[in-house]
């Protein structure tokens, strides 16, 4: 193979690999978007899965959660965040929260939260509960 052809070939393989890697992600996101969160179930799950470390209005092993939806990561006063989360620049939306809850250290390497929530419906329910705790967007 000539040098030029070799490069074209490598480029083609890389493109196929990129497509292969991005496709499942795109599909997973679509699934998440179509899931409707059940706020009441989310509140129950929050109590069972999150309240070992979090409270709505107090900093415990993890930071307080009231108003977290729509807020910048690492913004609760008086809580000692990891540098990794504090400097992440993340805004907590349905999408970033879904990614965080499914794998916190995957989204923010170096964070001190490692608890993963495997089930996408559980995540959607918990996220809609967190959203319900946030003040309405100012208009």
């Amino acid at each position, binding site marked *: 193979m000539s040098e030029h052809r070799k490069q074209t070939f490598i480029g083609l393989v890389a493109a196929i690999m990129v497509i292969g890697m991005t496709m499942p992600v795109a599909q997973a996101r679509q699934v998440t978007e179509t899931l409707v969160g059940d706020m009441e179930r989310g509140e129950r799950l929050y*109590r*069972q*899965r*999150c*309240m*070992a*470390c979090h*409270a709505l209005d*107090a*900093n*415990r*092993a*993890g930071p307080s959660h009231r108003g977290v939806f729509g807020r910048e990561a690492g913004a609760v006063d008086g809580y000692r965040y*990891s540098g990794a989360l504090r400097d992440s620049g993340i805004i907590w939306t349905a999408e970033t929260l879904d990614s965080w809850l499914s*794998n*916190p*250290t995957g989204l923010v*390497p*170096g*964070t*001190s*939260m*490692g*608890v*993963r*929530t*495997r*089930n996408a419906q*559980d995540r959607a329910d918990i996220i809609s509960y967190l959203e319900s705790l946030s003040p309405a967007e100012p208009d």
Partner: protein
Amino acid sequence: MTQHSPTRRNILFTGTQTLSAAGLMAMMGSSAASAYQGSDNPAQDVQLLNAAIALEHEGIAAYTIAAGSGLLTPDVTEIGVRFRGHHREHRDALASAVTALGGTPVETESEAHYVEALGVASLANQADVLRLALGLETGAANAYLGLIPSLSTAEQHQLAAQMAGDEAYHAAILGHALGEPIPVAGMMFGG
């Protein structure tokens, strides 16, 4: 164990981390080394294990506060004191793991901090205290199960599973004391 030596070198020579004497000993093969071996991300493991220690500190404090609350009968107090002993063992096991990884275990907060964080002021009777404890223990069992895939070594996975087992045991006893029905469905924790 050759594949781990780059990590060890990084820790020793990059200068971004300070290494405790115990951490150094662990690397040189003391008995505490098992928690370190195989970790290709000790700094991350330390972060996660320290969050678990914070949870255990709070659990210990919760049982101490409950025992002194005057709301519990002597037999229930005895159960709480026994459970607190288990949480102290958890704290110590996790602290050893953190130290072996070259990290520093987090310290406990003041009792006043926990009184406020746990909303102790709103507890009026024994059932309230038992419900608080049940919530904490259930949450802790779930937390450890959810933490397992984020930890990096088999030893740490097993340690977290052991903690989850103890917390689930506590939750079962507390649920029974509150007269809660046995769940119909299995897979009660984690997920």
